């Protein structure tokens, strides 16, 4: 009798882990293909279409990068707090508040574009940070679970945006009923490109900065120490509550900035639908990347390309529900791959008569 057993590996290996995640994604795509086959659709055509949508044209690439921008920024925000084992589920709310505050500047002030954009960015980041201030203080000083508080504030932020866009900031000039007027300043498009705004630089620069911070700075060292063992961090003389507040404010600011960038770079006006759950997408990416900033970059681009391909496939007539199922299968595959990388399969022969043999 042969049995197969999973044994936890003593060490985790980043490269193996990455490979398993890719394998998981492939497995997810295969499962999705099977579902499509069963529902009598041609998965190869659709895969081709999806690939073509993303990589077949300059527009596809640019749009993917546009979607990747908020996903990556929110992912970075979440990943930063995750290094401290703090779960910021509220990136969506901070994103909305960033966009909301930036709208407040952008629709009331038509100054020189660079100046308006700068103020919008500062105000957006500040609003995102403000939105996580209370969860941060509650977590740092009273041990209140930040998962609940940050999550709940998402709903509050959405209501605030709806209130603004349906009420005091409603665009009365055009007939758009659910939206604020367009902001006065837009992020410029990269020279030579058609759609992609320069906001795409932000996640790239921030990834590099965070990568450096956690590789070679005392700041990153201290955050990782708090994440590894807060008692040891306090023992080492790190002021843990203050660090928790500061890092959480930074994550809020990044998510808020992401809202401002999406607003001024792509959406141009605030409405209730401005965050198509970019915060949660970022959260998924950060969780799947397991605290690696490079992994996050790859994962964020991948999810953005999935979303982009999904919209194209939807326009080609594939139902939203099927697209959702495919996403689910792929993400689940990645999640399983991430766990599987930590185990190895051991096959053993077991014969009760002759006892256990190697």
């Amino acid at each position, binding site marked *: 009798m042969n049995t197969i057993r999973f044994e936890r590996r003593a060490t985790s290996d980043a490269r193996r882990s990455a490979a398993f995640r890719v394998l998981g994604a492939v497995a997810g795509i295969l499962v999705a293909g099977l579902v499509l086959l069963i529902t009598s659709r041609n998965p190869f055509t659709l895969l081709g279409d999806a690939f073509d949508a993303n990589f077949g044209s300059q527009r596809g690439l640019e749009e993917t990068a546009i979607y990747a921008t908020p996903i990556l920024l929110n992912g970075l925000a979440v990943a930063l707090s995750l290094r401290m084992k703090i779960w910021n589920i509220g990136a969506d709310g901070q994103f909305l508040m960033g966009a909301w505050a930036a709208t407040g500047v952008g629709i009331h002030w038509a100054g020189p574009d660079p100046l308006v954009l700068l103020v919008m960015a500062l105000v957006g980041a500040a609003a995102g940070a403000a939105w996580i201030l209370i969860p941060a203080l509650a977590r740092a000083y009273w041990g209140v679970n930040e998962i609940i508080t940050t999550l709940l504030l998402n709903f509050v932020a959405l209501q605030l945006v709806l209130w603004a866009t349906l009420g005091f900031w409603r665009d009365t000039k055009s007939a758009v009923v659910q939206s604020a007027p367009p902001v006065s300043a837009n992020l410029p498009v990269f020279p030579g490109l058609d759609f992609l705004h320069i906001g795409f630089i932000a996640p790239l620069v921030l990834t590099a900065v965070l990568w450096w911070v956690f590789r070679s*700075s005392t700041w990153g060292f201290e955050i990782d120490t708090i994440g590894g*063992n807060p008692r*040891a961090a306090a*023992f*080492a003389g790190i002021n843990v509550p203050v660090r928790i507040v500061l890092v959480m404010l930074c994550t809020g600011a990044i998510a808020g900035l992401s809202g401002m960038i999406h607003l001024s770079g792509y959406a141009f006006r605030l409405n209730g639908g401005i965050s198509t759950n970019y915060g949660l997408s970022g959260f998924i990416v950060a969780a799947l990347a397991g605290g690696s900033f490079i992994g996050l970059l790859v994962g964020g681009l991948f999810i953005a390309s999935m979303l982009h391909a999904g919209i194209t496939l939807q326009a080609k007539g594939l139902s939203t529900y099927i697209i959702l199922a495919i996403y689910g299968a792929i993400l689940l595959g990645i999640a399983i791959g991430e766990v599987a990388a930590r185990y190895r399969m051991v096959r053993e022969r077991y014969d009760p008569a002759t006892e*256990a043999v190697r």
Partner: protein
Amino acid sequence: MNAEAPGAQNAVEASGITKSFGGALALDGVDLTLAWGEVHALLGENGAGKTTLSNIIAGIYRADAGRVVVDGVEHQFRNPAQAIAAGIGMVHQHFRLVAPMSVAENLHLGSPQTPRLVTEKILVARARALMDELGLHVDPTAKIWQLSVGEQQRVEILRVLSRGARVLILDEPTAVLTAQEAHDLFGVMRQLVAAGRTVVFISHKLNEVLEVSDRITVLRGGRHVVTRDTAGATARGLARLMTGEERELDVTHRRIDGSAVLTLAGVSARNSRGLIALSQCDLVVRGGEIVGVAGVSGNGQTELAEVITGLRPLEGGTITVDGTDLTNASARQIAAAGVGHIPEDRIGVGMVSSAPVKDNAVLRHYRTDELSAGKQLKRTAVVRFAERLVAAARVQTRSVHTPAGQMSGGNQQRLVAHREALVGRRLLIAAHPTRGLDVLATQEVQSALIARRDDGAGVLLISDDLDEVLLMSDRIAVMYEGRIMGMFDRGDADRARIGLLMGGHAEEAFAP
């Protein structure tokens, strides 16, 4: 099931057990036979394979080769649940308790015997009944995190016994118990074997092994050395079997009359539960002396170490280090003043298990000019520092980039102890520094403390091992219920009087 009646066989017969981890052979064809109704001591240095062997018998690891027969029936345990179903339960060195939950809840957690519908009241009543039956008592309503290490250990033992273990494996249980608690535990062990159960007692404390066990198996380097009756065995003989060599600790007491390094005046503080844990403590530690703090664990020693090192705020009083007032200073300021701290819970407080050895090595020094410039860590300097520390502390690790948690407990302890000795230029607080260490490692740490003392630093040695306190200290303070009951010079130290003070019997202790 076996046709033969239970009890007719040996409790456990393990033979030819071999296990390797990633190429390193941890056990090499080890045999172990446990009879019913005996306390069987498993003796050996750290890394001898005691824990690995126990883990295999308890179903946590699977052997690469060999067989385990329990009560005449061969078993291939795939998980601890199967082992416990066969009557084998293990109490681990590192607790597996749910910290935010109460003692009663932990005792019932995951137990098939827990009633489906329960109230806190029922759980507490059931827990009390179990404790009364076994003679081991802990407040069943207390949350685990509020308990001392010793009390948590007791809950662990209770939990395994409550699952119906007939063979109880205790992995270094006394390492975390006070002398009195250990003594009580021995009583429980005798009671269990008298009822026909078997207790495996893993330890490297020779005195305890000699005191409580019926038979002894000595392991060294993953091999079986000897199994013999305890009767007639000597500590020295066993130590030689364990280590294969013999060394003596040099504890020459050269009293240097240094100035006061640490002065505590009227220090009071509360514990994590908000109760007064230290009241009006006065204590002076001078350079070049070791002050031992004797006391039963849970009488304020932990809080004493924490207030001195800035981890716990003072309710009242002052703390002075080298003449500088450091009352309620931050942990970083106090470390900068040259105060090192080997914490009681080295792994839980002193280390980041998931972080690499190098990060743990520089945990206290990363802000020094040697290791960082402004906010930038000097990464090569960090590695060099860590490698130096690892070499000095004789820490065995594959590299300084390996997660610290992957090293054995002894290596982790050595790393923390030597790191803190570096911090403690002026004063080293050592809380139970040899707890859980084997004979050799104990000697190493003790030598390191003595070396610090001889360098002119003050050492505050907190230990519930009275033998250790008496051996090492130049002066001895006795703590009871948060008070310092008495100070003894080395020459005046009298074991009986210290014992009485530890129990709070001040009048009798100072009676003429």
